[in-house]
């Protein structure tokens, strides 16, 4: 299997996720917007771990930093840590049913959000609304959606892992 088959698709889905990340939501609903970029990165790192690794996570994290106007390196750090864990556990995680995967995703999103919170606190004592943690829950709920959508994309181009 060619290593580069469907690489454009992978990039495209992540770009789409970045678009969703900054898409305008009506009114206060914006607080519910989950971290689509991390969700798609997790999916690809579980499905094709030899292709989407820490380097991609770091790069897209850096791009997300620019996208959302954060301190550079914030999302890069969070994403690369989460993807590292995913890569370590990907064989086990693929065997899990969706609900059990959801629990793992919840932990990943929580870890990423915790890191962001920590970095924010390092900059200046932050006073955050409780809605800061909402994306963790909505992200977990939307994991099956992301999973099915990206699985469809993956199978349509028969992007397969080599091991």
């Amino acid at each position, binding site marked *: 299997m060619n290593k580069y088959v469907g690489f454009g698709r992978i990039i495209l889905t992540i*770009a789409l996720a*970045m*678009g969703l990340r*900054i*898409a*305008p*939501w009506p009114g206060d609903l*914006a*607080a519910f*917007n989950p971290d689509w970029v991390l969700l798609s990165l997790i999916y690809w790192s579980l499905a094709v771990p030899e292709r989407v690794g*820490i*380097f991609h*996570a*770091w790069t897209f*994290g*850096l*791009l997300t930093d*620019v*996208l*959302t*106007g*954060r*301190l*550079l*390196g*914030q999302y*890069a*750090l969070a994403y*690369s*840590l989460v993807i*590292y864990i995913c890569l370590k556990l990907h064989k086990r995680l693929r065997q899990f049913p969706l609900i059990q995967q959801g629990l793992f995703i919840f932990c990943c999103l929580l870890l990423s959000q915790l890191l962001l919170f920590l*970095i924010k606190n*390092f*900059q200046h004592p932050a*006073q*955050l*609304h409780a*809605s*800061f943690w909402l994306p963790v829950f909505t992200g977990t709920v939307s994991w099956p959606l992301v999973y099915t959508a990206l699985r469809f994309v993956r199978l349509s181009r028969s992007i397969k892992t080599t091991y």
Partner: protein
Amino acid sequence: MAIIASIALLATEHKSQQLDPLRTTLSFFIDPLKYLVDLPTALIENATNTVSSYEALKKENKRLREEQLIHQTRLLKFAALEKENIRLRALLENSFKLGEQVLVAELLSINMAPYEHIVVVNKGTRFGVHPQQAVLDANGVVGQVFRALPLSSEIMLITDPNHAIPVQVNRNGLLTIAVGSGQLNRLVLPFLPGNADIRPGDLLITSGLGGTFPPGYPVAVVDEFTSQPNKAFVSITATPKAQLDRNRELMIVWSNSKPVPLISKPTANDTETRAHVDE
């Protein structure tokens, strides 16, 4: 590896401005995405404009023309008043700060972080925008440029919890600071003592202290006044004049910080001021 790199990046950017070129380069990849996300909203707006009826357009045109006439006559009066003001200030041996230049920028309907009041507009450093410029709309102060990228810039609204703006009460010149509350329709004035001369309905204007905001623009109207006997400062809230959640067009201001020389060449300054007004 990645972790060390990110921590190094974080530390560098927290302490200095050295990473701005990197951010600028990356923003060339990112900014098209922002425009792409904005596209549906822009298209819908375009479509509504296209299909709005001839009658409605005519009505709007008439209204705008009337409005323009009123403003024009007002401006005539203001020109005379401004001249008088310069003359009087010259008598007081005070320098007078000149008029401003503005650039109209359009809001991109994207959402960066839900708990921060930062918006993105479609004008960046390619148009000469730089950080800490004041941003206005037709009714008052909106915020200041927080970060300028080549194709877009981020604007922090005055209601952001991390934003503070030096203001003065228009009625009596009382100086204070208005801090953002995190709600789009509310500013807080936390630094006024209980006996301060301020009333509900007072207009707050920019004082020009600090140098970021040009003096004299309306910011907010004082709306609530609760004095707590057990505290040193009263808590006063104000409603911003600018329509922070409705306007799509914003004005980025270049304030001319060069003071006018005392009496020499009033004519040159005059024409320049008028030119700015015409823009």
